[in-house]
């Protein structure tokens, strides 16, 4: 199992470079703060954390992942790693797994900090919902690591990886919901479309991983009424979308990386 050696090296890297402590401090402070401001009798801690996870976790996942392969390809570190019995594919998979472990650990530390602070201030929070949001938060973190490492493996330089990675983040954050409108405008002969909003617009909205995460949380935790009964509004569709974001960019990255001169 040669990819495990690469995964271990990647998982230990933030600890060895001491950047782990910075990440850890940010997660503990931010999540701890959320635990602090949750008022007794108000919204449950899990619900308060959803927004932070949706906004903040993808960003850190991208930071942790976007340089991973491209940087060592650019500076020659990869020439050392690939001098040992690892295939290129194993290097990409090992890198993704190692960095995913880092992100899973950080998200977990954040949730522990939030739960601890909340417990000290207002009593033990509702643990069932917290556990579900934590699990989905880890899935979101891991899926964006897959996206970031996939991008990193697909391009030659860290600059391109940065542009693609953070461009994607901006897309998720705001531009995503505008895209269908733009497409409809163009399809309508460059004039504002009329009539009811077609269903594919809603489906497209659910393909955004941060939306998918929130959909999954809504389906599994709040139990509140979903905006529609459609398949794309279910928790499982959200989970499926996150798994797709984990796998597809990674596969594309591996295929491109496998075929090119280093």
């Amino acid at each position: 199992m040669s990819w495990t050696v690469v995964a271990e090296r990647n998982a230990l890297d933030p600890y060895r470079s001491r950047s782990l402590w910075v990440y850890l401090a940010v997660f503990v402070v931010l999540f701890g703060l959320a635990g602090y401001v949750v008022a007794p009798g108000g919204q449950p801690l899990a619900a308060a954390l959803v927004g932070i996870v949706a906004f903040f976790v993808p960003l850190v996942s991208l930071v942790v992942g976007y340089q991973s392969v491209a940087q060592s390809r650019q500076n020659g570190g990869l020439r050392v790693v690939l001098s040992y019995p690892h295939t290129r594919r194993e290097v990409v998979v090992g890198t993704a797994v190692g960095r995913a472990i880092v992100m899973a650990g950080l998200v977990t530390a954040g949730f522990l900090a939030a739960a601890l602070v909340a417990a000290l201030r207002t009593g033990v929070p509702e643990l069932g919902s917290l556990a579900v949001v934590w699990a989905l938060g880890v899935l979101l973190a891991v899926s964006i690591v897959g996206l970031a490492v996939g991008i990193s493996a697909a391009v030659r330089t860290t600059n391109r990886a940065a542009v693609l990675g953070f461009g994607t983040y901006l897309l998720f954050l705001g531009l995503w919901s505008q895209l269908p409108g733009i497409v409809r405008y163009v399809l309508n002969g460059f004039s504002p479309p009329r009539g009811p909003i077609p269903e594919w617009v809603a489906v497209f909205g659910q393909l955004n991983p941060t939306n998918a995460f929130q959909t999954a949380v809504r389906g599994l935790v709040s139990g509140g009424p979903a905006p529609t009964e459609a398949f794309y509004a279910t928790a499982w569709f959200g989970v499926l979308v996150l798994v797709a974001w984990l796998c597809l960019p990674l596969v594309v990255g591996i295929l491109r990386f496998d075929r090119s001169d280093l």
Partner: protein
Amino acid sequence: MTAIELDSLRKRFGDVVALRGLDLAVESGEVFGFLGPNGAGKSTTIDVLLDFLRPTAGNASVFGLDAQTETKRIRRRIGVLPDGYHLDGHLTARHHLEFAVDSKGADDDPAALLDRVGLDGVLDRRVGGFSKGMAQRLLLAMALVGDPDLLILDEPSTGLDPNGARRMREIVRTEADRGATVFFSSHILGQVEAVCDRVGILADGELVAVDTIDGLQDAVGSEATMTVTLDRSPDGALDAVGDLDGVSNVAADGATVSLSCPDRRKMDALDALRADGATVLDIETSDASLDDLFAAYTGGRE
């Protein structure tokens, strides 16, 4: 058994042709020096062997395994000191060596490996503070992990001080005695002639010579430079010497004459100088150096 086999290997980058159909067989157990000036294609060849680059045409194989499809099996059997490498500065020498040991499933002791390359005492230091030579030694130590059947060393002496270069040669000999094949590249002939069984000279993407050091020396025709000191000025004898077949570069400085000629012409040249009664007081000869030979093979192509 053939350790390395190149078959009509070609590599083109855009419109730059780096390798123009290399054919080469390096036998198992051999120490092979891969020589050529900068930009001749040495690293490109090695990068194809390591599957960092894909050939445009032709084949490369290591121990009969295809270099592009059976990379993992090849990498299990080789130790590599690649060119253009980078070592993560925040990792210690121990981290790097443990990565090599774990990757190979070997059980070498990191401290003993560092000892072998003369880097003892830096096991737990971060390599960010290492000099170029220290990094080079660490990489050599990593290449030795698991007693590889083939060592591929790309410009291994870069950045090494004379002690380091000597130790590098000793390690190459020790590994060869153990039965390993060693394939290493260099642009400096002096570094390879002491340890190589055979050398290949690469110029502008083509192998222009593959032979033993002795064979190469013979091939150059053992052209020698001879300096003769007479008891008087040679005057008229100079023309007679210059007219001899094979003699060239005749020059006189008072009673001292220097000239270039093949070995078999040396006595004729001396006889010609003594023809008008002069006495030879001293003779110095120097064989054509391999550097001259190297320049002859590669010079016109740069």
